């Protein structure tokens, strides 16, 4: 007799009416470079609810951009490989989706705005062309209907004289205007999720503030979910509902935005918060910075990746990697420390 067939796994019943729009489980991304194979993302899990805004913070090279760009599989396959995990968008498994599904999800369900608006716009195509191709494909609009829509979009993102602007090329736009146009382009086909890869880094502070205000307004108007990646905790404070702090390809802390700022648990989060200038605190000494550099991801350390730079380092940190554990309501941290070691001033 053959062994009894294994019982099919039964998914736990979903909580009524609440289901995450995006569900990322144990995502791994590997970059194959000349220097070796780097584990850019090492087991990242998170969810994004309908209408929710998630902020992902971390320094350069922590894997935050790799994380969000791998969701709609936009990383170049020649160097980046999604080596494990699952990504479900509204029930669709994106990592195993066929080309057709991907083409309709990209742009149609998930819009992306990129770091450098100039290089992300095609220099030889008029803006009208670039703004209308999405809606024509995803919403099935005619050329003239799509042009009308492009006009509305440019108006919605606050670009004056849109009729003239549509006829222009990206090089004729100013930096801030290009980013507004990028946002218009990302929202053109009515996506439900907006992924933002450090879109304000290249802009000056005034323009940055305008762009943030614009996204906050559009988010409410259109009921968008947003995943916003940045190295700037200041931006996240005014934008996100929930914050993920990433370090060396892993999430080290996750909590709602108030908790992250007022009761950070992970020493890395604390160090990040201490290194931003604040107007409400008087300082006599220079702004502290975090000594050292993140570990190599080609040969990641066995223990906690932050141990070499950590002020609270213990012996077990060197050879045991702390897992994310729940330390409060909706608050997880990947650190062995028992209590909140220090209340951020």
């Amino acid at each position: 007799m053959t062994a009894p067939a294994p019982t099919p796994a039964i998914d736990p019943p979903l909580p009524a009416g609440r289901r995450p729009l995006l569900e990322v489980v144990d995502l791994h991304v590997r970059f194959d470079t000349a220097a070796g194979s780097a584990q850019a993302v090492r087991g990242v899990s998170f969810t994004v609810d309908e209408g929710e805004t998630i902020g992902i913070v971390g320094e350069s090279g922590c894997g935050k951009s790799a994380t969000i760009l791998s969701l709609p599989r936009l990383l170049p396959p020649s160097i980046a490989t999604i080596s494990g995990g699952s990504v479900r968008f509204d029930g669709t498994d994106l990592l195993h989706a066929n080309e057709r599904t991907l083409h309709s999800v990209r742009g149609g369900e998930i819009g992306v705005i990129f770091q450098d608006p100039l290089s992300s716009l095609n220099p030889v195509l008029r803006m009208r062309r670039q703004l209308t191709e999405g809606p024509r494909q995803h919403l099935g609009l005619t050329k003239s209907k799509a042009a009308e829509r492009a006009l509305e979009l440019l108006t919605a993102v606050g670009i004056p004289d849109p009729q003239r602007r549509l006829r222009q090329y990206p090089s004729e736009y100013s930096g801030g205007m290009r980013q507004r146009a990028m946002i218009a382009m990302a929202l053109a086909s009515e996506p439900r999720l907006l992924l933002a890869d450090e879109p304000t880094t290249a802009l000056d502070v005034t323009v940055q503030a305008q762009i943030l205000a614009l996204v906050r307004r559009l988010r409410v108007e259109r009921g968008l979910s947003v995943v916003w990646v940045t190295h700037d905790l200041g931006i996240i404070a005014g934008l996100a509902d929930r914050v993920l702090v990433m370090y060396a390809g892993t999430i080290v802390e996750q909590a709602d935005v108030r908790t992250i700022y007022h009761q950070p648990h992970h020493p890395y989060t604390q160090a990040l918060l201490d290194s931003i200038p604040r107007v409400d605190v008087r300082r006599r000494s220079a702004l502290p910075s975090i000594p050292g550099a993140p570990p190599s991801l080609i040969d990641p350390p066995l223990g906690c990746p932050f141990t070499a730079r950590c002020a609270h380092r213990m012996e077990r940190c060197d050879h045991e990697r702390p897992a994310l554990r729940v330390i409060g309501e909706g608050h997880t941290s990947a650190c062995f420390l028992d209590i909140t070691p220090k209340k951020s001033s």
Partner: protein
Amino acid sequence: MSLLQYVVRRFLLAIPTIIGLSIVTFVLANYLPGDPLVRLLGERGAANPKIVATYTKRWGLDKSGPERYFVYMRNLVHGDLGRSTTTQRAVAKDLFDFFPATIELALAAIVVAAVGGVAAGMLAARFKSRWPDAGVRLLALLGSGVPVFWLGLLALEVFYLRLHWVPGPEGRLSSSTHVPPHTTGMYTFDALVHGQWATLWDALRHLILPAFVLGAYFLGLIARMVRASLLEIGGANYLVAARARGMSERRIMLVHALPNALIPVITVLGLAVGGLLAGAVLTETVFAWPGIGRYAVDTAKGLDYQAVLGVTILIGVIYVVSNVIVDVLYATLDPRIRIGR
């Protein structure tokens, strides 16, 4: 600066170039060996004092070099390029008759080079480091490495003598085919316009091999350039952004990547016009193609001073004008050039 302004400016800038070109050509032609009168009139004419006197007056031969230049230019503006001692006809008439054959051949070669080169380059870039890429690169290397006259003879050996796919080196039409009514002088075009399908087919069969031979060098060059520039822009952010908007790989290649990759190719097309006219001399000789290249060879052999001068100036003007056209194409394709002035 609007596109129209740019075009007008580029054409105005071409005028001094053409004047300079005519001066250089004129000065060089004056250094051809032999008695200029004999060159112009032939032995018999030079012996007749009446003819000599008329010619001396008409071309200002008793005047200084600069004055002779102005006389030549004045006659040129009036359409008089002198007489060819080889054909015993007016040079202007000769050029008018021979030129369409060359234009037809060169245009066909450009089409072959551009279409074939872009297609081959796209194929190579798409299958980088796989066999289509290796094949295209090898063919491109052969195409641009083998001399035109040898390639021409080889092509005739294979496609005419062995395979009988094309007619032999007998010119532009079979002897049994009538020349189509003159509209442009380009037989394929004229036959098409007048609906003479048999003539069109015959003209195309005669045209295809020389066009491939003449275009081979630039086909190879363009294939390698398109491949390199497609690979260079392959990871460009704007392509990732287009992908993020849900565009298909096909559309990304054709609409987003190709126009950017073609910008450097346009420059090559400008150079190609000069190279093709030079190559036409050899190709036309190999295929007995009655064009301006063969006319240049035949007249140069006879030290046919005014014919050589006429051909040289005509080719020079075409070269300058085609470069202006390339600049304009450039500005059309890449808007940044117009803005950057």
